[in-house]
């Protein structure tokens, strides 16, 4: 018990001190995973790529360590701006607990919809992910990927407006199953997942709608190529269902993730989130900064 307490303290201290403590902290038994193998922070706060959660547990904690990550992401779209901030903790490379907050600024569209210019939808996302089987990094001689199951419970702060828009639920729980495999020799990471959800625009516009109010499976996947140990490029896709009749469609991105140090990453992406309420696809630049230990 005392050892665990000491470990938690060490881990937390390291996270607050942040960069540059790696070589020292390693001696104390933190940040034991290989460079960049904790991944980056997914838009809903889970360890992953940008759009899709991966089966990897966030941070650098190995089987006897605690790891963690904190992130800030801005997605600057043609007509909206989404900011997502959050933090996650990885327990013994087995369980991941995450929290993220979304702020979706409707800018001029808010005025056109009668909500007021700059009307902002907010939601909180509480996530849990558990690694079930396999190891994405070490099982290089096996086909089995690392597989994890996760839950993201989302709660909108805009219940009244959602009700006025005819959206039945202001909270919802997504359940996802995700498989991740790194082919080190080929320098390729593959990830595929299925998410059972009835969220509209990740939950920013609530859950369910007149066209559908049932939980349905959606696909999400990532392909990444390791240019170097600290640099990956890739693409992602994530399908979304049109519950509201606004022709909501799939989201895509093409990303570059760079780890200038083991404990910091910067991800830049070009994203296409598809139609969001108004005609025309919402495209723009995605930028995410993550610190992890």
């Amino acid at each position: 018990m005392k050892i665990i307490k000491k470990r938690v303290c060490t881990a937390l201290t390291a996270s607050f001190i942040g960069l540059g403590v790696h070589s020292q902290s390693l001696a104390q038994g933190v940040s034991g995973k290989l460079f960049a193998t904790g991944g980056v922070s997914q838009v809903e706060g889970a360890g992953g790529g940008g759009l899709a959660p991966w089966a990897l547990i966030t941070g650098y904690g190995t089987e006897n360590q605690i790891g963690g990550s904190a992130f800030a992401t801005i997605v600057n779209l043609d007509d909206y701006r989404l900011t997502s901030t959050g933090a996650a903790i990885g327990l013994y490379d087995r369980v991941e607990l995450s929290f993220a907050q979304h702020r979706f600024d409707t800018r001029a569209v808010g005025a056109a919809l009668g909500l007021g210019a700059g009307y902002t939808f907010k939601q909180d996302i509480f996530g849990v992910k558990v690694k079930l089987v396999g190891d994405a990094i070490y099982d290089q001689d096996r086909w089995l990927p690392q597989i994890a199951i996760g839950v993201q419970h989302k709660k909108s702060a805009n219940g009244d407006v959602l009700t006025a828009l005819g959206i039945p639920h202001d909270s919802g729980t997504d359940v996802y199953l995700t498989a991740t495999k790194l082919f080190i020799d080929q320098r390729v990471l593959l990830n595929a997942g299925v998410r059972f959800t009835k969220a509209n625009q990740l939950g920013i516009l609530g859950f369910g709608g007149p066209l559908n109010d049932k939980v349905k499976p959606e696909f999400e996947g990532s392909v990444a190529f390791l240019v170097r140990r600290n640099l990956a490029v890739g693409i992602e896709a994530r399908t979304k269902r049109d519950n509201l009749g606004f022709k909501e469609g799939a989201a895509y991105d093409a990303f570059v993730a760079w780890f200038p140090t083991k404990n910091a990453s910067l991800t830049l992406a070009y994203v296409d989130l598809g139609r969001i309420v108004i005609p025309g696809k919402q495209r723009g630049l995605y930028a995410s900064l993550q610190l992890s230990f």
Partner: protein
Amino acid sequence: MKSIFTQLAAATLSFAMLTLPVRGFAQTATSVKTAPNEAAIAGFGGYAGLMKINLDLVARLKTNALIGKLFADTDAPRLAGLLSDQFCELLGGGCKYTGNDMRAAHQGMGIKTHHFNALAEELQLAMDAAGVSQSEQFRLIAKLAPMKRDINERPE
């Protein structure tokens, strides 16, 4: 007129100058192995390159804050030789690793993933220092990664 001693001394000196480097070279040439298939490890500078990387690696391991004490009494050239044989074999160089199997060699040492990774990261630095390309580095790391199962301490 030169004395016979001067001539003899000069002859001896020039003989020594000629032979010493040659003998030195001959010794190096016999102690450095070449792999049966050097082409498979060309990206590492052949067997001699692997040996150089592994000598650097063992020096780095001895000063590593986390796992240095495990290598305090290690015979550096011997371990570097074993690692070079092992890497050469894994990379298709046709060498034969003659050390203990991975499980036997690490039993009872309480090795965890972070210890294994500390070695892997030192190896990456040693390969960086030797100018090994990223693709060749990933090729070797891919072969070494599954060894974690045997090297790590199993839960009771």
